[in-house]
């Protein structure tokens, strides 16, 4: 694959949308779920961008659309300077080597009837023309890189712990030497003590293999520890994008503010005592007019229902709020 122009982002998403039809019992379309609805985001080579939001906000759909699992409804996906959203399947597959996706549930994404050895050989068989011996060498090298002993090659996925399954899932991907990895909830279901070692591994591998990460997570503490930049999503739209430290220091969008205020902190006053956000996110089939957060927003005014706030630049970050 050609190197992209210097300074250009590795991944550039422009006004990307992915809508899913809602059908009734007779297969007639009764509406649309606008899971991703006009998202623009650029990711530079070597950086880690966090994509946060609550369940149903469209963050996984965004990741899967970039990955080519869903076809985009509208908008462009440029990877290394090339439009990849509408490539024919054969050409799209060639991109897959460089752009990989780590699934949320490592147990479910590993074939239960295959040993780890077989699981690690598979991507090399599909994407490379290496001989058996060369593959064997690569498999052992990658297994060591993710911190698993050779003895694990003979185990089935159910014999591994959650943290180890995640390591195998990563090894499968890294053996292809991708440039960008989309990590979908990579720490959900892990205990804190294991989580720290998995995150350490992500950091180490990023250095070793010069990876670019898109880190999809609902866990704000994890995103804060891992990502230099953060994009906050609500109901299919980005509401705030900026440097992680700055966003955590002073969130500008009222949704970001509520989200950060809800995270339990150890020591000091209980955060739930001061937590003010009422209600739940509205149904994505029926999104509110104007600003999508207005139904729960403490700052809501008439203009919020009438006009959708664009994502505009405010002090070096982008915020979609009339009052930011």
């Amino acid at each position, binding site marked *: 694959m050609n190197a992209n122009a210097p300074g250009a982002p590795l991944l550039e998403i422009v006004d990307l949308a992915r809508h899913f039809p809602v059908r009734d019992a007779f297969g007639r379309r009764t509406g649309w779920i606008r899971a991703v609805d006009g998202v623009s985001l650029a990711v530079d080579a070597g950086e880690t961008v966090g994509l946060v939001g609550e*369940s149903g906000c469209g963050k996984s759909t965004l990741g899967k659309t970039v990955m080519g699992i869903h076809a985009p409804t509208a908008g462009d996906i440029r990877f290394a300077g090339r439009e990849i959203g509408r490539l024919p399947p054969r050409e799209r597959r060639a991109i897959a080597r460089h752009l990989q996706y780590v699934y949320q549930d490592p147990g479910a994404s590993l074939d239960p009837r295959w040993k780890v050895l077989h699981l690690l050989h598979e991507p090399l068989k599909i994407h490379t023309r290496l001989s058996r011996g060369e593959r064997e060498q690569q498999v052992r090298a990658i297994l060591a890189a993710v911190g698993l002993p050779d003895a694990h090659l003979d185990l089935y996925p159910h014999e591994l712990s959650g943290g180890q399954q995640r390591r195998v899932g990563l090894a499968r991907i890294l053996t292809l030497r991708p440039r960008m990895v989309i990590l979908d909830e990579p720490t959900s279901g892990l205990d804190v003590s294991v989580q720290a070692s998995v995150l350490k591994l992500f950091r180490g591998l990023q250095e070793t293999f010069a990876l670019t990460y898109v880190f999809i997570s609902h866990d704000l503490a994890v995103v804060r520890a891992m990502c230099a930049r953060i994009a906050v999503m609500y109901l299919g739209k980005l509401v705030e994008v900026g440097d992680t430290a700055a966003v955590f220091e002073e969130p500008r969008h009222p949704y970001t503010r509520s989200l950060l205020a809800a995270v339990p902190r150890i020591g000091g006053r*209980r955060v*739930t005592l001061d937590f003010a956000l009422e209600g739940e996110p509205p149904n994505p089939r029926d999104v509110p007019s104007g600003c999508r957060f207005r139904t729960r927003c403490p700052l809501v005014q008439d203009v919020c229902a009438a006009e959708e706030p664009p994502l505009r630049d405010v002090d070096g970050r982008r915020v979609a709020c009339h009052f930011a």
Partner: protein
Amino acid sequence: MTELLSVRGLRVDFVTDGGVAQVLDGINVDVAAGEVVGLVGESGCGKTTLARAILGVLPAGAARVRGGEVRFKGDDLLRQDPAVVNARVRGRAITFIPQDPSTSFSPVFPVKTQIMDLMKWKSPRAADGGPGWPLRRYPRERYRADREAVLETLRAVQIPEPARALRRLPHEFSGGQRQRLMIAMALLPQPALIIADEPTTSLDVTIQAQILRLLRELVKARGVSVLFTTHDLGTAHEICDRVVVMYAGQEMEAAPAEAFFARPAHPYTRRLLASVLGPGGELRDIPGDVPSLVGPPPGCRFHPRCDEATAECRRDRPARRTLAPGHDVRCYHPVEGPIGS
């Protein structure tokens, strides 16, 4: 404070294909009246087994209670007549909030059917054993009174339009609303103790914050005790008066919440708290793995991963040592001072 629930030296084994797993190894936990106690530990440490043992709903084929007692209001539930426990305690004096509210409702009946079915047997107005044999009919006056109580409790857990909500099916509610319904069902029998098994794990943070606050307000207003299991120390901080830490089937430390987070004494507790991500983003894991419960390490089960471990740790389980009123630690080498010192 008087102890409402007092678990003493409880041992539970599970028979597995790999051998006998000693899942609970002489656990001691106390819950005082009106107190919210957090039971904290990593997955596989035995928190759910302990919760089920207290409720008396361990899987009959696999689990074996080898010793100890579960004293509730002075009576040992393990040795009482199971029929009496079923009629008076389980679902009445002790109720349960599950981790996953979506699989705890039947998908095919409206919420009303399911809540009124609970009330038929477990309402505070029901006699022991529920509606009288042989009719097993729901007495009409009691039904009306119970229905009022249900509506009032649904209002208390902030379900909008309770009367209409009752006619809906479980899938028509969001995850947060379903958990509110579960909390209502746990409160309706007017229990003395609620066992909540990771009730906010499947919820988003903003919903979790709402639910934690609601639950704490409701139980404090009604004087109900809660045993709240969680793997998330932040959640424990939000809701608990006292925290008990478990590791591999043994309790390691029990302390009032304030002391627990400020001055943890057990090396495991300190490691666990240090592994929580702080704003600085330092990553500190606990080296090593949780031991297998089939043939676990002798003595203190944390000793293979502990920096402080000595010969006596490998030999005998440390006795309970009281550092301050209410702050007990089971360690030969408790550490003083705040974390990081």
